[in-house]
């Protein structure tokens, strides 16, 4: 076996893949701070995975192209004892790589998603009034109560005293979603925000999102609330449009809703 040829294969393939991964643009619309975190983690994982992927590819290609035997079956090659260091080095390298990926983007990305320092990752979430809570710190500039039922979404704005069947948000403000369900488990997911949380009966879950650009469902299908947990007959169709507005337009919308 010629290690040099194998290494050349590996370097060439890695170069190609890293180039492709770093230029990868195939993300859906990104309309929130959380989307940027997720997409960054996604791209970073692609970069980290590239050399691993190409190493296996190179070995596979090299062995198929250069290590094919003659004969039916081929004469076995003379047995050479294994060098004991190889598995140890492999183990150490993969363990180090796994440890790094656990740290970044794993724990780092998780902390960024929650907007908390790394040291607080093991803490549990806010509030004595819920036994189980979910992702995100305690505060929000705007509270939206999300109620899922078979098969529709309802959004309440308790501070504004209004309710709607369409999710309308102001751009640039941290929204605290308080999510629950009236019947069975649903999941609150906006693809353009890259995050979701289950809507569970007898439980309130939390999700924090800061929209970073305006837009609407009419412009991009990614701006929709889509149920992501199988909930029976209407599951596929359980979606609501999302609109992200400039703050003043949002205030106007609130005022208009309040009059109705």
């Amino acid at each position: 076996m010629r290690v040099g040829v194998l290494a050349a294969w590996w370097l060439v393939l890695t170069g190609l893949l890293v180039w492709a991964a770093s230029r990868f643009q195939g993300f859906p619309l990104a309309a929130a701070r959380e989307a940027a975190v997720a997409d960054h983690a996604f791209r970073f994982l692609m970069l980290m995975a590239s050399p691993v992927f190409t190493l296996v590819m190179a070995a596979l290609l090299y062995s198929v192209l250069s290590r094919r035997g003659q004969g039916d079956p081929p004469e076995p090659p003379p047995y050479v004892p294994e060098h004991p260091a190889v598995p140890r080095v492999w183990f150490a390298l993969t363990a180090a790589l796994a440890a790094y990926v656990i740290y970044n983007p794993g724990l780092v990305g998780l902390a960024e998603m929650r907007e908390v320092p790394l040291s607080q990752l093991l803490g549990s979430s806010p509030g004595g009034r819920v036994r189980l809570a979910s992702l995100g710190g305690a505060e929000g500039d705007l509270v939206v109560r999300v109620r899922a039922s078979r098969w529709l979404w309802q959004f309440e704005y308790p501070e504004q005293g209004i309710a709607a069947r369409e999710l309308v948000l102001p751009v640039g403000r941290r929204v605290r979603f308080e999510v629950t369900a009236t019947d069975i488990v649903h999941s609150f997911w906006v693809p353009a925000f890259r995050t979701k949380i289950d809507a569970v009966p007898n439980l309130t879950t939390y999700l924090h999102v800061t929209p970073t650009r305006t837009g609407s469902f009419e412009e991009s299908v990614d701006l929709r609330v889509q149920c992501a947990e199988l909930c029976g007959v209407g599951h596929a169709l359980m979606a609501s449009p999302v609109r992200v507005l400039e703050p003043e337009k949002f205030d106007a919308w609130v005022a208009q809703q309040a009059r109705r």
Partner: protein
Amino acid sequence: MRVTGPVLKGLLYGAVGYVLGGPVLAAVVRAAGGSFPFDLELAAGSVLGTVGWLAGVGMWDVWARGWFGLPLRSWPEDDGVARYFRFTTDHKVIGIQYLVTFLGLLFLGGALAMLMRWELMRPGMQLLTLNGFNQVMSLHGIIMIAVAVAILLGGLGNYCVPLMIGAHDMAFPRVNALSYWLTPPVAVMLLASLLVGGWDSGWTAYPPLSTVNAPGQVLMIVAVVIFGLSSILGGINFLVTIARMRAPGMTWGRLPIFVWSVFAASLLSFVVTQYLAASLLMVLLDRVAGMSYFHFARGGTPVVYQQLFWFYSHPAVYIMIVPAFGAALEVITHFARTPLYAYRWVVGAFLGIVGLSTIVWAHHNFTSGMPDWMHAPMLATTEAISVPTGLVFLSALGTLLRGRLWLRTPMLFALAWVWNFLIGGITGIFNADVATDLHLHDTYFVVAHFHYTIMGGEIFALLAAVYYWYPKITGRMYDERLGRLHFWWSFLAFNATFLPMFWAGLHGMNRRIADYPAALGSVNLWTSLAAFLLGASFLVFLYNFVVSWVRGPRAEANPWQASTLEWQVPSPPPVENFPAPPAVVGAPYVYGMPGVRHAVLGAAGGSER
């Protein structure tokens, strides 16, 4: 009648059992003024029906009569096809029973997948109703899960493990037969659920949906619990067999790697399967006994189900994939004509996977509303599992690079396994990472990921193993040209089907939906067309499998000139496997070591027949 007698008797007893345990019991209770919900009627009927089936098919005659001090009865001995329709204790017959039954279910599940892809080919509803799609999707899921758990362990594990360790049979031959004969009622119940409204909660059966949907859910629960029992009994049987039935000299360090993988998977299955049974039984209790585990109106806590369920169901994927690792490495080492590289590290990796897999379950629950403190540790343990898995890759690649490759059909499928599982494994990292998983969870990205691991990983390894052991099992050779055609066709179609699904998932296509936004139309059209090609490729396999068994050229004892024990006896092996216990004297893979042997067979055995 000689062929179908036991099965007909089993069906008759099963029907009687169902009627007595279900409708008749319900009528009696109702006549006495009690209440007897239809769900309970279905559950009681199907349990008693299964008992009746087992009694009719042979357990009464060859087992239970002894408990009452009566002489045992058995059906007349038969070498022909009839023995495959009997309660037989020969592990080779049971292995073939498993293999053929679950290949049939694999094709059935595949046909259901074709239905789904037909519906998903274009946006809007064409072929199925919304509810019909959910039922087809659920049925596809649970059938394929059952296939993935049982086909490699129950089929090839049963057939090969006793042969590979030099035993005459499994440790508990009758328990082995029971494990198999428990599975036909499972299939019947799953299909019969369509008669009572089916069920639409997917194979995961998350409550509270599964506590309030159609009665078909009850049949699904009973079926899965019974299947779990079969899986537990099979696991115990493998553990005792491998621990205590090895031939003289077959030390733990000389076990073929496939045997080790079966051992590791059995270690998992005999414990964690109980958690699946428990979580589904809780759903059943909610339904039939009015309990409040998960039911929303009675203050239940649905999140608890997800913890218990995944405590089984994540290790379950290792019950599926670890034997596939073993089978693929087995094929790779024989067809690379060199000893398996880093054998001890792989064994350690299998056991490491077994250990780690019990502390990773909550990565399925990142978005479920579980306590926040669970995210970080579960993320870490999940990603740590890539380290032992990496050792499996090291072993495969080291063996390939040091060998002289013999590219026959089994080897081609084993190489495809490396490619497919690599993609499946790497995309798993994206699902283990919270920052990316919050978006990707419950999307087609996950669908693509687990089809790459289970279909691309396990089923491709299964195909490698089926082609590899085909001459041993059937005594005939398959058609090599058709085998290669099947390989290239299915490998290309598989990747064409599932690679685009990653893109669809990233772009907002959630899983288990009958309809999707029109923007996702073209990727779905492509996926559907590729899926039909993939489905069609299996017809080549089916043709090759059936026709070669009937008309293929006779196979020699050892067509691959392989070193392990099962190849040192005639194809197919005699009933008693080895005329006398073989003496194992060396490592399992002794290629390129002149004069070194794995085993010496007894005087009457003879390896070069």
